[in-house]
């Protein structure tokens, strides 16, 4: 049975079981993943994840179930969701499932070259990247390359029936460098929808250079200094900090530091942030979200003022608004097992006038922070984070990398202190952002 037929079938079954409304989210994703460790290809994996996440509504109460086997009795899966709904109790805030509407077809989301990519091509690519990264001083090169092709379907009892497909390609390179007992490392990676949107060789060379440079990394001094945030560090700040805090579910529950900030000015005129689920080739660009609501473009922050929140059908119904098409699942857009949530799609920060060089000379003495693995506390907006890739700015020039250095700021304070917005936009996963210059940030390190 095809996945779409399975979805339709389950809707019929659940209605027969007594569901008042129901929804099936079918996903079929096939990935080839090649791992290269310490210069040698180690594993080739083919993962085919296929299944249906099912939700049934009985007298205002919602139940979940899912299946990974289309050869089992689908009736059983539908029945389980109905049973779960019957075990719960009504939620008057749940207005209903998505109603049918037309979908735009976004561009740049399906690349035939990715869809037809073989393990052999990926193996050759990994080997090439390992050679590119093998410069003097490098101790080990680890590469992961993955091509994926997916289809997804939303069918519900209101008559929604959506079909979408797409591709993605991801590469990450982790390089370590060693000099006696000193060791350093560097990571570069990105994920895109079409193969032309990425230059894996450049990432490999960059990671290798950074790892070798990292051997000379120095501590910084515990102090308050100006800081430039650029590149991948903008992901936890803009997506993880600002866009995630404008999640209507968290705001409605008073769990976000942005809870009372709608229509308030939180940042400078130069700061405009948009969630765009339809941008050409965006990593999370889709025709519709996991509830079958059309993807849209939503202005989150306009010239420093918070304008909108991100909604799914539940939060929109509760607020008497339309969904912004930001329904996701707890494990992401292609997760059919998890709970329906609200999440940003592609996030865009509008570029300003400053070049990175101008920002560096403006800073004089401070830090250029390019990456961290930390995320902000959404309740408070506090971000206390380790610099995993950053440089000392000394007399207006970029100096050595920093090590064992933490920085701390509050996201609201960050927006207030955003002194300049850069003009060079870089793209990391689902974020398109220029650098930001912040006037003073608390940094702690050895001295």
């Amino acid at each position, binding site marked *: 049975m095809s996945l779409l037929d399975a979805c339709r079938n389950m809707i019929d079954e659940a209605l027969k079981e007594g569901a008042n409304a129901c929804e099936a989210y079918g996903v079929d994703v096939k990935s080839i993943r090649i791992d290269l460790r310490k210069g040698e290809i180690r594993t080739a994996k083919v*993962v085919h994840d296929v299944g249906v996440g099912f939700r049934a509504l009985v007298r205002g109460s919602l139940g979940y179930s899912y299946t990974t086997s289309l050869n089992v009795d689908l009736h059983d899966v539908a029945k389980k969701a109905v049973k779960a709904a019957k075990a719960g109790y009504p939620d008057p805030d749940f207005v209903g499932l998505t109603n049918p509407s037309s979908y735009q077809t976004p561009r740049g989301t399906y690349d035939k070259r990715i869809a037809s990519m073989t393990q052999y091509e990926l193996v050759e690519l990994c080997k090439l990247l390992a050679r590119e990264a093998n410069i003097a001083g490098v101790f080990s090169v680890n590469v992961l390359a993955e091509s994926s092709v997916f289809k997804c379907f939303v069918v519900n009892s209101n008559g929604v029936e959506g079909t979408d497909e797409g591709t993605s390609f991801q590469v990450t390179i982790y390089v370590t460098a060693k000099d006696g007992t000193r060791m350093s490392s560097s990571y570069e990676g990105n994920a895109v929808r079409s193969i032309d949107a990425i230059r894996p060789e450049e990432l490999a060379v960059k990671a290798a250079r950074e790892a070798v440079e990292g051997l000379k990394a120095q501590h910084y001094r515990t102090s308050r200094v100006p800081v430039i945030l650029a590149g991948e560090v903008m992901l936890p700040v803009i997506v993880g900090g600002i866009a995630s805090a404008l999640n209507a579910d968290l705001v409605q529950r008073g769990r976000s530091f942005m809870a009372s900030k709608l229509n308030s000015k939180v940042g400078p005129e130069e700061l405009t942030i948009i969630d765009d689920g339809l941008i050409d080739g965006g990593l999370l660009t889709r025709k519709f979200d996991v509830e079958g609501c059309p993807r849209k473009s939503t202005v989150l922050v306009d010239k420093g003022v918070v304008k909108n929140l991100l909604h799914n059908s539940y939060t929109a119904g509760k607020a008497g608004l339309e969904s912004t098409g930001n329904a996701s699942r707890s494990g992401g857009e292609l997760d059919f097992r998890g709970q329906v949530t609200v999440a940003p799609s592609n996030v865009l920060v509008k570029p300003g006038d400053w070049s990175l060089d101008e920002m560096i000379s403006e800073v004089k003495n401070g830090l250029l922070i390019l990456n961290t693995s930390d995320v902000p506390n959404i309740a408070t907006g506090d971000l206390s984070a380790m610099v995993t890739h950053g440089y000392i700015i000394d007399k207006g020039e970029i100096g050595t990398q920093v090590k064992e250095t933490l920085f701390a700021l509050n996201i609201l304070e960050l927006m207030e202190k955003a002194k300049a917005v850069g003009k060079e936009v870089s793209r990391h996963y689902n974020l398109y952002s220029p650098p930001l210059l912040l006037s003073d940030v608390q*940094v702690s390190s050895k001295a």
Partner: protein
Amino acid sequence: MQEHYKSLADSALEMLLDLGVDFADVRLLSIEGLRIEVADGKVKELKFMDEVGLAFRCLVAGGWGFTSTSALVVDEVKRSCLQAYKLAKNIGDGAKDKLKLSCSNTAATSAVILKPIEPLSNMTVAEKLAMCREMEREMLSFSDRVKSTSAIYSEFSENAYTVNSLGLKSEYLVPGLIVQASAYASEAGLVQRGYESHGGTGGLELLKHRKPLDIAEDAARKAIELLAAKSPPAGRHTCILDPELAGVFIHEAFGHACEADLVLSGASILEGMTSKIVGSPKVTVKDDPSLKGLFGHVPADSEGVVGRGTTLVDRGVLMSYMHSLETSSRMGVQPTGNGRAQGYASFPLVRMTNTFIDKGECSVEELFESIRKGVYAKGSSYGYVDPARGEFVFKCSMLYLIEDGEPIQLCRDAALSGHTLEVLMNVEAVADDLSFRPGLCGKEDQFVRVTSGSPHIAVRNVLVGGMA
């Protein structure tokens, strides 16, 4: 486990062997479960989980091939086996390093069934839901400043069957549960979250070890206390870590660097350090998957190996890494039962299970008396490490400034950081109150259930990242 599925797994292994592989294993995994999440008095999720799948892995001339399927029918199994073989052969043809796996203890283990004292089915779904609602009421009644709450009850029953070409065969059935409470308190525009959890492997008896209402109350108390918290002082301090945070600390700061796959890929600062001094003589660190009842307990790992516990650090000396079949074969040692995969669609990696700092000799009171000035860090939100650089960070939920041996001021959202090779050396004291917390550990997009444990410990010269 259905016998039909097991014989499908057995025949898949034969299929792979017939193709001419050097090693193969087939893993059958079924997970059944229930997840209830209540938020602000409403059901947010009530879900029945049920899935079963097969994983096929083979080694040909040093190359690994891996496939999986949830379509448990003969044709699909044949197709998946052949594909795994082709993937492996392609890589093996170009490999210089012709890995061979070995394991001296390949006696088939009898099926292990962890029988809960009180089966999960002794409570109905409605009763479990009512329990979550009561937890929410408990949090709300703690203080009127608690404005938003969530309570989660999640249970699972994990049934695994693994066979491999070395003759290893294992089967187990392990049930378990976890209860989580989150309270959000607010005052004058400031929001703070308090979180508590309790869980393990076993049945409903786990709810008696720590009562759900107590978990709820503790979460609410934390949120209220945090409302009065200030930003922490940036800089280096002597830190007392509570067992929860010290558990995360040993997991992040040290545990990951002891994973032999990282060591072999040149990504661990502990490479070449076995039998060398890596910590103070007060520190002993163990990883033990065999500890029943703990959340990280597995009767056998995802490669079928039964782990009996590994001493990683013995009184300051690095004794061993944690191993999978591949890493133990490469290093010429025995596997330790740490080859774990998230689900049937994931390739086993070297993972921790129940990892802990063993208890020391002083009492908690003596430990506090010895630290006149510093900070007392409690509770953890998360942590991570770059095992190659040896730099790690972990987040504490509460941090008290200590003066004259007394905690005086509470601070919030502090990141604590240090260097793997220095930090265990800086452990000044280890108390005798070992306790454990359940958690999920992520590595390469795979999450597995683990336990971290420790007594209270005191560590010199920890870097605290704060805003003040």
